[in-house]
């Protein structure tokens, strides 16, 4: 079995080779066969998908498709609210929560005729780098089932890599799209902060979160980014900037003459799997062979990313997760005597350990007597990190970085020590702190056959330049679409 891109399926729908109902049935059947193994989904939307597919075929028969992608299935990370379909954030505290409205991005998918096929598994409330923090069990990496798919958008990665959906949406607060994309051999893009509406994305860290595409190739990422982007009056942090047709411009702009910054602090080799280093070096050579100039830069504050992030993000999370208290929705603890006991026991029973840990880190960092020493200091370091990015982007068009120090690791390997897990994200965190855009591009495989990706970053709202460079590099590297996980042949 080969994995089909959304743009390939769109062509098949347009020329009548297939129908939306046939596609929905094929993917649902494959999900039924592979879910016991992969566990990508918290909720499979069987009835909803078939109904949406029927409506799509009717529109197409009447000559009125809503978009080129009308009828193409899509999987959605279960921290984006979907009207009438439970949205759990992979937490017991929202296990039976059924939203009465759609988030803006979900609404845009429906308005384009896409067929939501299921809600995917994540680390609880998007807190984690392996999807092992899900309250409903871990998702498995289709490339090797003993390994994690990364996180927090693990289920969104496994369903696409495992052929259960042609593309999916993830969310990225500190690398949660890019790192699982690297572990599962996918393209995953974090848009510039404000490019995509956060209305309906259950907030983890309000100044860092973004929804983004997880796809089999750069063209699908470009197409999906155009569908989901845009100003939203319901999200006061969304940017009022026009949305280009990113896919239409993809093949323009050559890498020849482009300046690619290589921050030396990301290339010390320290803590890196040597096979990952080799693939990143090979990619650098490939860029040179395409005529790009590699510019050595220093971004001296990158080494403080983990500390800065784990104060800023946790502080914001402690505030955002205060709403989960059993009062208006979600799980409520039984037999409590008063309101404070109800709140405290509901949250104790409803949240998993990582969520509690991060809420407490954030609360401590914000508390009286510690606020300046931790939270404000971290915000000042954030300014220094952002300035490093600005200086690098003043000298170059793009920044190159590894995505992860290592390929997918074994389940359980990093769960005993929270800090060991946090250090997985050393190459991804700083982009969210700066607010700029970046993606993971598959760049090769280890000798064990595991995918390894690299990152490219661009400045604010420079997704066009980023995608053009990624597309050129994707063609030149030539690994995308050449291998599929063994599970894909089931």
């Amino acid at each position, binding site marked *: 079995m080969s994995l089909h891109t959304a743009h390939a399926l769109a062509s098949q729908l347009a020329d009548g080779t297939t129908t939306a109902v046939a596609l929905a049935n094929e993917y649902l059947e494959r999900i039924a066969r592979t879910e016991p193994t992969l566990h990508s989904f918290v909720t499979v939307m069987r009835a909803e998908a078939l109904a949406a597919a029927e409506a799509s075929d009717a529109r197409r028969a009447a000559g009125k498709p809503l978009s080129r992608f009308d009828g193409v299935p899509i999987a959605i990370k279960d921290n984006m609210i979907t009207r009438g379909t439970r949205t759990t954030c992979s937490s017991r505290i929202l296990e039976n929560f059924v939203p009465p409205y759609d988030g803006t991005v979900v609404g845009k998918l429906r308005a384009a005729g896409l067929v939501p096929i299921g809600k995917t598994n994540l680390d609880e409330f998007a807190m984690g780098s392996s999807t092992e923090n899900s309250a409903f069990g871990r998702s498995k990496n289709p490339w090797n089932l003993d390994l994690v798919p990364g996180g927090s958008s693990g289920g969104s990665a496994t369903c696409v890599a495992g052929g259960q959906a042609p593309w999916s949406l993830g969310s990225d607060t500190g690398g949660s799209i890019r790192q699982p994309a690297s572990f599962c051999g996918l393209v995953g893009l974090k848009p510039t902060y404000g490019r995509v509406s956060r209305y309906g994305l259950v907030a983890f860290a309000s100044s860092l979160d973004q929804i983004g595409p997880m796809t089999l190739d750069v063209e699908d990422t470009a197409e999906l980014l155009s569908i989901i982007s845009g100003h939203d009056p319901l999200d006061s942090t969304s940017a009022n900037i026009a949305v280009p047709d990113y896919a239409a411009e993809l093949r323009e702009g050559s890498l020849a003459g482009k300046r690619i910054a290589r921050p030396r602090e990301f290339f010390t080799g320290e803590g890196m799997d040597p096979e990952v280093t080799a693939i990143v070096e090979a990619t650098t050579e490939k860029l040179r062979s395409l005529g790009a100039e590699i510019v050595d830069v220093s971004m001296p504050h990158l080494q403080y990313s983990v500390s800065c992030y784990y104060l800023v993000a946790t502080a914001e999370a402690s505030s955002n997760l205060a709403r989960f*208290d059993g009062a208006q*929705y979600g799980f409520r603890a039984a037999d409590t005597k008063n309101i*404070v006991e109800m709140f405290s026991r509901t949250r104790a029973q409803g949240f998993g350990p990582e969520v509690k840990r991060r809420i*407490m880190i954030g609360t401590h960092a914000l508390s009286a007597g510690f606020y300046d020493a931790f939270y404000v200091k971290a915000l000042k370091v954030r300014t220094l990190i952002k300035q490093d990015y600005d200086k690098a982007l003043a000298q170059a068009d793009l920044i190159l970085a590894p995505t992860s120090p290592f390929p997918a690791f074994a389940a359980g390997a990093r769960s005993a020590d929270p800090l060991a897990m946090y250090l997985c994200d050393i190459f991804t965190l700083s982009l969210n702190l700066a607010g700029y855009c970046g993606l993971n591009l598959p760049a090769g495989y280890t000798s064990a056959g595991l995918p390894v990706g690299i990152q490219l970053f661009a400045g604010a709202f420079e997704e066009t330049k980023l995608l053009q460079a990624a597309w050129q590099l994707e063609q030149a590297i030539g690994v995308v679409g050449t291998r599929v996980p063994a599970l894909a042949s089931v």
Partner: protein
Amino acid sequence: MALSAKDVEHVALLSRLELGPEETRKFTDELTKIFTYVEQLDQLDVTGVPPTAHPLPMKDVFREDVVRTPLSNSEALSNAPEKEDGCFRVPQIV
């Protein structure tokens, strides 16, 4: 920076999280480890550096003061663990 069990109990109270003794012990160890790690930020001189709370240069984003259609009462209550007379019902507050 080392946290004591008392510190963790205080943070748990502020966070409205009821912790058992074993949990308190475990979180005390873990939070100590994490707060010791973040001390590396003290290596930096941040004098005169403004804090960045928000990555985009935006302020005062307002909308027109126009009434829109909200969720209905029943939609808003649809996930309520307990409800009464069109309101959310919770244990005694005062």
